[in-house]
């Protein structure tokens, strides 16, 4: 498990670590020339099998659709609640049945 602080760093780490699951914050704390949408598209292009969960404080459906229509596993609205966490757990359980997420 690793954590990136910017879009560029996220893409570099994605290439190095080849993760099965990425959680991607739409508004990253450090702006470095690669925004989250570019990072998301790069990851999807380079490894379509990787599951990407998009996390955002913007709850509006059209923004959510921008990512889900391009293949995001889910769009989780911040701040997290038990409800949103349960939703994520269900989705992850479907994608990674080998995990025990009870």
């Amino acid at each position, binding site marked *: 498990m690793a954590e990136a602080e910017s879009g560029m760093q996220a893409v570099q780490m994605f290439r190095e670590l080849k993760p099965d699951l990425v959680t991607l914050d739409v508004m*990253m704390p450090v*702006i470095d020339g690669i*925004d989250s949408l570019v990072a998301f598209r790069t990851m999807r292009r380079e490894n379509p099998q990787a599951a990407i969960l998009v996390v955002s404080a913007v709850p509006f459906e059209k923004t959510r659709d921008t990512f889900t229509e391009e293949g995001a596993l889910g769009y989780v609205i911040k701040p997290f609640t038990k409800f949103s966490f349960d939703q994520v757990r269900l989705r992850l359980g479907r994608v990674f049945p080998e995990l025990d997420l009870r």
Partner: protein
Amino acid sequence: MTRVCGCCRPRPLAVIALLAAAAAVYAYHVGRAPLAASEAYSALAAAQASVESVARSALSLDPGKPVLYHLLLHGFCRVVGQSEAALRSVSIAFGVAAVYFVFALGQELFGFEVGFCAAVLWAFNPLAGVLARWARMYSMLIALALGHVLAMEKVRRGSGVAMLLGAGVVGSAMLYVHFGAILIVAADLVVIFRELRRTGTSRCWPAAAIACILFLPFVPITIAQSRALLFGHWMDWLGVSKGSPSQMLLFGCGAAAAVLWLGLAAPQAERRREGLQQCLLYALVPMLALAAGSALVRPMFEVRYVSPSFAMLAVVAAYWLDCGGAWLRNLGTVAIGALSLMLLPLCYGAPRDPWPAIAAKIGAVANPSEPIFFEAGFFSPDGQVNPFPDQGFPQGFFRVPFDYYFHGANPRAVLPAAQPAAARKVIAAQLGHGGAWLVSARKWPDALAELPRGRDCRLDYSGRFSRISVFHVKPVPDR
């Protein structure tokens, strides 16, 4: 076989036709106008993922408006989506319900004709039209307040325990929609006081007590939010009272005297006259309370906060027209209704918020890496900024309506309120990613002062959208 009297049959049909006409007028092109900033805050709460998040959003960003409307809107939007029309549909439904309750209250107090005329006067007046098409809680507040007053009147006239419980529950629901409902409960107390003086007993005090008891869990939050609203600086409450102490005292005494006069006026033997005094109390107590508060504490009188009082005034107006005879009542109702209908298009065509245009402009030009800046705090309509940076909207008041229309992933960032030097530094530090956008609610020269200057940057675009200024700053490449 039951035979229906021919002269009675048109009555329900007339009411249904009126409700249908009101629904059609309210729904006409309802999704065409972009969301106003405050409507976007309703949308923000409604779009949250869970009930808990809805409540949190409403409590933190919509003070003075408890959670019931937002929760209802959340449930509705989960089914029909978050479009402008969907968000405003809830208000339309309550707007039509309010027309029915105006009719029912007028009928209960003064008979069918007065009730019907009151409903016509209310249905097509610009205030009802605007509030019924606004994705805010005011048409719900009006409908619940009228429903509560109607149920209280039915209890007063001998309806059973179910109606009493209904009056209490609806009264509590109204309190959970907007703090303005507290003023309706205050009017309840004055009416109960009159009832006690008139008959020596009161049938409807338990309903008022039930409403208050059901609201008790929310009282701590109400007290905290009321303090913030009265002594903090929120959008609608900017400024302090400007009257001199003697003027304030005079006005406060005048308002108190008017309420006392209404409360202590001799009880009327005739039921219609007593009904009129009750209507006047429900109409005037909230208005006088807010007017007195404006004189004594700080400006707080907004028509929408006392919108149920205006619905009550429609009943009063219909009664007065009826006193002049059927001819005057009918002609007056038609004339006022027609005039209101002519005024409605003017209200519907009021200046629209510019957020779709701003989002389209930035979306067409922006590199997705360029940050978009908003100013923290809040602004009065004339561009004055909140002097207290720790109050108001730390994420930028206008970011929410912008986010509703802008679907790009550009980073959003916040500038400190009313600190142009600090703002210049923050923007300059982010210019390395190709440029930066500023969406400002300040006056044009104040907004310009927040932009970095010098040889290493240039103003690539500037535009004024209504009262919002938009700037695009780009770095100048090294030569």
